């Protein structure tokens, strides 16, 4: 049986660090067990692609990057004018169905499930840790729970998803995941953090 190895296998499970005064204010971890499917339509056929997507996921396709849509199938993120990402449970058949449903003349489907590592940070001081590197206004007025941003941290491109007020998920490039994790852990140090066990399919 061939086993998957996470990019963060060397740090999860692992120990956190207490912060100032021994505080443990944050939880860092990795959400696993998801499939990331990229669907890109051709300019004149994007409408058809979107309607197929909507039918398949049971929800509408988001209009902009900032406000993703949570459907019955999972999260749908707009990542470009003609491009969306679906984050769905790994065990499902969404990829196969999309590949069947979206004909090559309308658009393309690409499996990116292994290309991103989903790192989460949770806790009341999560914004304080993230603002050390994310050049984003992380106030709830500008990035509310459920909203997302295509941005960058530690010189690498990431998708940042604010799942709840205090929980953020960072979709980091797999090959940079450990460096992003190290950055995040260091940024979280003063608030104290613990490393959570890997979560399978959390919030998908």
């Amino acid at each position: 049986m061939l086993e998957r190895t996470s990019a963060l296998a060397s740090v999860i499970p692992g120990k956190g660090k207490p912060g100032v005064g021994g505080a443990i204010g944050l939880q860092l971890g990795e959400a696993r067990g998801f499939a990331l499917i990229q669907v890109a339509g051709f300019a004149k056929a994007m409408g058809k692609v979107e309607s197929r997507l909507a039918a398949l996921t049971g929800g509408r396709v988001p209009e902009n990057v900032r406000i993703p849509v949570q459907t019955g199938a999972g999260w749908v993120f707009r990542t470009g004018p003609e491009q969306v990402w679906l984050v769905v449970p790994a065990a499902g058949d969404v990829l196969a169905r999309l590949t069947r449903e979206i004909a090559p003349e309308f658009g393309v489907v690409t499996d990116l499930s292994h290309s991103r590592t989903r790192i989460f940070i949770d806790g009341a001081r999560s914004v304080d840790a993230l603002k050390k590197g994310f050049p984003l206004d992380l106030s709830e007025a500008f990035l509310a729970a459920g909203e997302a941003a295509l941005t960058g941290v530690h010189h690498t491109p990431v998708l940042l998803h604010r799942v709840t007020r205090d929980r953020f998920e960072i979709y980091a490039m797999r090959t940079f995941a450990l460096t992003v994790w190290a950055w995040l852990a260091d940024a979280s140090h003063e608030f104290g953090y613990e490393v959570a066990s890997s979560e399978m399919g959390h919030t998908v």
Partner: protein
Amino acid sequence: MTAYRLSRGGRIDRRRPVAFLFDGKPQIGFAGDTIASALLGNGVMLLGRGFKYHRPRGVFAAGPEEPNALLTLGEAGRREPNIAATTAELVDGIVAQSQNRWPSLALDLMAINQLAAPVLGAGFYYKTFMGPAKKSWMRYEPLIRRAAGLGKAGVAADPDRYEGRHEFTDVLVIGAGPAGLAAAIAAGRSGARVLLVEQDFALGGSLLSEPAGALEADWLAERIADLGRLGDVTVLTRTTAFGLYDGNTAGLTERRDHERPDPASGRARQVTVTVRAGAIIFATGAIERPLVLANNDRPGVMLASAARTYLNRFGVASGKRIVVATNNDSAYRAAFDLADAGAAVTIADLRAAPDEILAARARAKGIALLPGTAVAEVLGRRAVAGVRLADWKGEDQPIGSARESIEADSVLLAGGWSPTVHLTSHRGIKPVWREDIATFVPGGFAAGQVGAGAVIGTFTLAGAILEGATAGARSAQALGHDRSGAADIAIPAADRGEDGDLRILPAWRIPSRRHGKAFVDLQNDVTVDDVTQAWREGYRAVEHLKRYTTLGMGTDQGKTSNINALALMAGLSGAEIAEVGTTTFRPPYTPVALGALAGRAVGAHFRPVRRSPLHDWHVANGATFIEAGPWLRAWYYAWAGATPAEAYIKEMEVVRRGVGIADVSTLGKIDVQGPDAAELLNRVYVNGFLKLASGKARYGVMLHDDGTVLDDGTTTRLSDTRFFMTTTTAQAGEVMSWLEYLLQTAWKDLRVHVSSLTDEWAGMSVSGPKAREALQLALPGEDLSGERLPYMGAIETALEGVPLRIIRLSFSGELAYEVFTPADYGIAVWQHILTAAAPLGMKPYGLEALASLRIEKGHVAGLEIDHRNTLADLGLAKMAGREKSFVGKSLMQRPNLNREDRWSLVGLESLEPDKKVRGGSILFAPGEELKGHGHGYITSVTWSVELDRTIALALYDGALKHEGEEVIAAFPLKDEQVRLRIVSPHFIDREGKRLHA
């Protein structure tokens, strides 16, 4: 007499003494002190030495404008030089040292420089130290630097943490004096998100210098309470706005020394904050400037406003017999307060008729008021002993002969006020001269920015509060936050008679009839004579004056000197000050520690590190790593040796004689999909891709549009509409961007999407004569015969349900396969293959062997593809399709790209086995002088296990026209030369029998 601490008064907490060391001597101050106020309170007047002449210097100011009292704080890794004692908050245990003296501050032998003063004028080093030999300056410079200058940074690693942070706000208010407080409160009441930053450790700005119990003090306490009641107002003290940048972005430095942050707890000592604001309100106040007179640098001479600050804020009197030299009203406040504190005060006012109300008050307080009188000279050497007074009838009139000398222990200078326009000018808006208040004010503000209070020339308290409140409310309103009454902020009834407009009689220098240096810039030891000399020698522009004399340089950037110098220049030129203008203000406003700028980008976090999906296996199995761009790659493995030189040869032998496996996950991988995917590839590659069959791979080369080679790689057709492209590791990002660029601009009609798969797929190369056998052991059910999987064939299959893409191609020149699998399965598949093929002796090989194998084969890589060479240069000219069009085809025809003497690919064999051949060596013909760029250079070099000698690839003038000739490879840095012979770059298997096996 020296300065001394009063028995009561001030904003210090006398119940909390704070112990510290100054030059090794124990000192005691109080919580709320700066180091300067604590030392003055202890009667320490001598804090430093002058830059050039090493004259004794004391505290001159009470803020960041301090030119003299620069100290080195901390020890070992925490040693930090050039900190103004006037801004350093007193913290228990501080170790402070004076600077620029030898052997001690009290006995500084370098003061001998004063004897050489006549030859140390402006620009002396430009003239004096250029001879006699050509490079004499190189010998003099270290000596000069040792003899003059500021503090020295430590060399030990700093144990503290530093970091950066991003903040966003509606309204950024810079400065928490009366205008800034009013602005923040008004904007906050309007509903805006407000960030108020203050460089001091206390809020209040100029109000902190008002006597305790005054109406202003009550007002300050009430406004601070107001701020606390506003929910969305963030206040950052100990935070300096050091720069203004595009898009209402400001740079701040936040200091936390008072917390004594423990790096082990993760808390940073300093933070660089990048603030993006909807609006910025500058409430940065103004800085008092001195009068320029003889010996105005003696310890005990300070700005009048500073003396008032030390008195009212810190409970420290600057002396007992005080002379105030002024040309304006503001100095009277200091005089009155000091007289109230018991000092004997004399006011020497240049104006013949000072304001009557002020004069009456002065007399009522027992102050000796001397109108029309100049302090012509300060007496004393290590401390103020007195002053010499003279009649003053204006700058255009000769100063009167010395009228009298009076004893004094403190001289206070009040030459007017200079608004702190630095930040407002950082984006290029020049300050403008205002004749009525004899100073420069901001020349305007960018959209979304406004000034309030003294920074725009409003020197009354009421005016500052009103302007601040209005600015706060309007800035908030412009951003959609509007509540009536937001700007209604009480104004304290200022009936003390001193809160009037600034009445001033400009005076830029007080000439003396006696000898005595009159310093314009105290930090850089620039005198009136230096400015005059510079002007005499032709330095008429202020920027030239600055660079020739060093005036306005250093840690204070001329905050107390610039305006006086400009005015002196104007006077020498007969020009108006407005015409002379100012020098250019650039960030930072005050010094910023390099650590704060670097933040956490040090050590392991210096830059991001990219790791292969197989990285953990390499770690666990004895790999030594090497950085390759952002990647951390397995360089060689412990099984093969302890050193790279030893290991890579063994690893090469495994591949040439058996089978090895290498991690090639770093290759760029791109999904090219769509009905027009083949057309896209056919346009970007120089060779044809339209007819590539499914299940087949093809080597391709693509060009920049200027006709030079961009990259090479292999692309596999997986279906009619889907291709799997690989690129070199180095060019992966560039190729991806190039394809996206073409699709989004030039060829929007093509129905193709490209996606990076570099992170999605792990890749491994199984290479060697036994490669097929090895893979067959790993995939026993798969037909890997030459018939099903010939050279440049590809199959998609699965191993226990895990997808595999197997492409038969070779970088090493041996029979080889590249196996790709989804990244998380990379280690499992790699381990499976290694285990299955163990009976064949399969071993992993690293980057060094990988690169050496390709040199033997003569494959070009990043070292040869340097973005300057053509297809022909790299021996690839035959690949270009003659009938088809492709990017770069037109410009590759340029004559210059087709010269016969272009440096082109050759192989080299060493003729001297005992000598080392180095990459980058310059190639010369035998007997030729080893000078200049030669005829080419070595791009790659290795030991050949097949040929048992050192071989290399090189780019050489005329290439294989010279086959068989000898060349000299010179490496001038080590003075090494080696003889080599030019040969074909294909050192092994030119017929390709091995890879077709």
